[in-house]
């Protein structure tokens, strides 16, 4: 129960942070950080995939409604939640059944960074391809994907480090 309330609060906090502040960042005209997927990346690996997909869909839809990009982030977030178990399996060997949450501490920094990067690349490709919905401007499309990926990776790793430090202190 407590963890559910916690998750709902994180959900609301990340959506508001995304739509009120981060959506207004356009570094070099192209790069927008999408920190809200931190929520999807950090759900425990033992949680059912269906449940995670529904959470991700709701998160994407909330971001879409505020940003008038209906369907774009919902599709990308659902896809991210769908491939997440495969990404974890690819980068980290763990004992089945043992509780596990992706983090720097549990996976090591290299594996965690790889997991986050692959997830972000997949998510951002879907977002920008659906948003442009044509390959008429391939350069703009590629620039948006690459620059936003770098920025989102930076934000996710920074927030993860803050969390990790707080946990090791307490």
């Amino acid at each position, binding site marked *: 129960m407590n963890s559910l309330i916690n998750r709902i609060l994180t959900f609301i906090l990340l959506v508001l942070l995304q739509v009120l502040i981060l959506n207004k960042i356009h570094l070099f005209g192209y790069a927008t950080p999408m920190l809200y997927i931190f929520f999807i990346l950090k759900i425990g690996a033992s949680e059912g995939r269906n449940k995670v997909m*529904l959470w991700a869909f709701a998160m994407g839809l909330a971001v879409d409604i505020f940003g008038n990009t209906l369907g774009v982030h919902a599709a990308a977030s659902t896809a991210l939640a769908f491939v997440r178990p495969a990404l974890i399996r690819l980068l980290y060997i763990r004992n089945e059944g043992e509780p596990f949450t992706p983090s720097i501490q549990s996976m090591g920094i290299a594996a965690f960074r790889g997991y986050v990067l692959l997830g972000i690349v997949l998510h951002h490709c879907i977002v920008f391809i659906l948003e442009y919905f044509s390959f008429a401007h391939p350069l703009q499309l590629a620039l948006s994907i690459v620059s936003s990926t770098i920025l989102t990776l930076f934000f996710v790793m920074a927030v993860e480090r803050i969390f990790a430090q707080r946990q090791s202190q307490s």
Partner: protein
Amino acid sequence: MKGLLEFLYKHIHWLLFLLLEGISLFLLFSFNDYQGSVWLSSANTVSGGILETEQRVTSYFGLASENRRLSEQNAQLEEQVLGLRQMLDSVSLERLTAETEGRWPFTVVPANVVENSTSKPNNYITINKGTRDGIGPDMGVICSEGVVGVTYKCSPHYTLVLPILNSKSNISCKVRPGDSFGYLQWQGGDARLAQLRDVPRYAEVSVGDTVVTSGHSSFFPEGIPVGVIAAIDPSSDNLSTAIDVHLNPPFARLRHVFVIQNIGAAERKELHSHE
């Protein structure tokens, strides 16, 4: 049968995945078709309210420049009033009212910008007036510098505006001097540049000419400024020229806009419905 059910249960995440992606794509492609989808946009009550609160807070940071802009505009209007008053002295009032009656079938509703983007391939603007303030879809939106766009979807308190900076926007314009007509469209990229299309090749236009609304559509009165011609290239079909227009309105820092209600349009519609 049991085997099938087991198979389905084992692969239910595939079904859910396809279902959710299907819903997402359906929403993506049907957004334009239904007026009701305004509830899934930033113009709904909850998101509009949150964004308006944020706008109220952040608007304090720009007060100094906003004040300066308003007083400049005030001075210009004052100048116009003086000029018009002088003209009025030389004409009798009775004749003037008789001449101008019904000439200006537009009223103007002021609104604040709640949410705005300029860097996406398709941008929208949300303003804090809706159907309760008499606003409906397909009304012109301007700011003191010129044309912003056309209202698109309305909820009771908020309206989604389709600005020039959206690939679906298409505004009938003409070039002054010369009165050559064309359509203003935006191809993405720079938020200060749009293209004027379908201007015939023989039209005499030159860099620096002003572009204004044509008055052909019922959204805008004639002669509202849009921008200034920045460059002219012959287009590939050799029948018309593509003209780059430097847009007047500062889209990136838009705060106050005006919605133009065309009373004449409603009257026309009513007349048609009585037939």
